[in-house]
């Protein structure tokens, strides 16, 4: 079975908040659900499938279906960290293709900014996590985990801090046009290099923001999508691939995107050269470089050269990316960037991105997520969508 053409993204909504001190996490889920339904022109009664991940409070769909007052016949709480929502879109398409539901709602929300989260804090290790005793004592946090990937990438391929900085520079060029973005100031390579080192070799401006907020998408059966008044965005390919330490056979510079991307391209029947716009998970600048290589947009090891000199800037570069400003400048709701990657790709395919960053003739787009940590274990998810 393929999901190609079996489902459409009928609604998409990104919460405008970046600091939600006066809202609960569940409330944010409800607000984004409402926003996505309004965007699609559907009502709550139309939803018969619900998807959420670890950011959903309580027992995932059990708590949220009750809180939202949904009546669904299919749920999925696949948890792959920040890439969960790309997986959810693919799984929703599978469920629709299998006749398990017609209209699926996927929600994400979180308020790590209000709760004081940062990328230099230890994560919350559960007592039964098998890797915990071999990692927690060493002080691995988000920032130094990704930093080790950057350090190794530099060693193996000669990637430079200046090349990493170009990823941030491109994101900032896009964010200046996004009124909701946390960081709207255009920055230069030198400004990135002059920002303090957080974890060698990553500077502060190599790191994404911490923000509250959320987002939701509605995935619908083709007949339903065609009955709506919105531009149609068809799901044509998807792939997912967890990757870890392989029992100690470490290969830190290759991400799961090598496999998830290959699967998605094969299913979609397109090549990297066919992609007009990419949303690439940008927890850190290095994350983007590794994923672009693994997806095949350039040769392995050439990612630094590929992103340099504005190649990711819409209107000037060959591969416009994260035209909302991405996690590096716009937002990173719930410390999970997968949902906003889907949403900006949908905007681009609909022709509804900001006019200053809208890619002309954007007919095929790719969204790529990396959940967990590139430096230990992560799950890649790739989604390819087409304007109909």
């Amino acid at each position, binding site marked *: 079975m393929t999901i190609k053409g079996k489902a459409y993204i009928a609604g998409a909504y990104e919460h405008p908040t970046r600091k939600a001190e006066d809202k609960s996490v569940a409330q944010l889920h409800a607000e984004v659900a409402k926003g996505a339904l309004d965007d699609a022109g559907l009502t709550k009664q139309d939803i018969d499938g619900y998807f959420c991940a670890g950011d959903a409070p309580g027992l995932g769909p059990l708590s949220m279906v009750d809180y939202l007052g949904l009546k669904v016949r299919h749920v999925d709480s696949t948890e792959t960290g920040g890439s969960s929502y790309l997986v959810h879109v693919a799984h929703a398409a599978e469920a629709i293709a299998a006749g398990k539901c017609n209209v699926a709602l996927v929600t994400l929300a979180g308020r790590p900014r209000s709760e004081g989260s*940062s*990328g*230099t*804090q*230890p994560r919350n*290790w559960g*007592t*039964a996590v*098998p*890797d*915990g*005793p*071999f*990692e*927690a*004592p*060493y*002080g*691995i*946090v988000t*920032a*130094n*985990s990704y*930093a*080790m*990937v*950057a*350090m*190794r990438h530099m*060693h193996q391929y000669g990637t430079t801090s200046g090349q990493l900085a170009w990823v941030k520079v491109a994101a900032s060029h896009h964010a200046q046009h996004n009124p909701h973005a946390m960081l709207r100031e255009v920055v230069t390579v030198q400004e990135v290099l002059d920002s*303090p*080192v*957080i*974890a*060698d*070799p*990553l500077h*502060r401006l190599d790191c994404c923001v911490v923000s509250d907020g959320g987002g939701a998408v509605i995935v619908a059966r083709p007949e339903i999508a065609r009955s709506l008044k919105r531009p149609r965005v068809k799901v044509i390919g998807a792939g997912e691939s967890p990757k870890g*330490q*392989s*029992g*100690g*056979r*470490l290969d*830190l510079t290759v991400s799961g995107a090598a496999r998830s991307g290959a699967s998605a391209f094969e299913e979609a029947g397109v090549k990297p050269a066919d992609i007009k716009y990419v949303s690439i998970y940008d927890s850190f600048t290095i994350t983007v470089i590794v994923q672009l290589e693994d997806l095949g947009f350039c040769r392995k090891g050439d990612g630094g050269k590929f992103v340099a000199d504005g190649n990711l800037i819409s209107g000037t570069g060959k591969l416009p990316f994260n035209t909302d400003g991405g996690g590096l400048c716009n937002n990173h709701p719930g410390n999970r960037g997968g949902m906003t990657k889907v949403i900006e790709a949908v905007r681009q395919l609909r022709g509804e991105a900001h006019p200053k960053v809208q890619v002309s003739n954007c007919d095929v787009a790719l969204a790529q997520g990396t959940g967990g940590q590139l430096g*230990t274990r992560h799950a890649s998810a790739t989604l390819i969508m087409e304007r109909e």
Partner: protein
Amino acid sequence: MATPYQDRKLPAPLVNAENKPFFDAAAQGKLLVKFCAACGEYHHYPRAICPHCFSDRTEWREAQGTGTIYTWSVLRRGVPVAYCLAYVTLDEGVSMLTNIVDCDLDAVRIGQKVRVVFKPTDGGPPVPMFSPA
């Protein structure tokens, strides 16, 4: 510029039935790695069932305690004391997450030869870390 290594409070590893021999050995100053008698491969972190071939014929072996730095990063912000997180590839061939200690952290390099040392944790068994050989 130099960033001399400083001791810091280390969270104790959560010891369970599966990993207890590793930490019991660490308390004796020994680094253990898991070896699979079925496929002849080492793995880390240690499991009861081999993650390579899925055999249950895994056994503890004492490692030589020497290795090479695969990658590293000094966390400098948001923490009271800068420290060097690293992966070290043991001479047995498997890489383990660890810290580089007892040296100038600014002089740490990929490819550097290192030797195991054990550092106390806060209320738990000591854990293996590495210093330049």
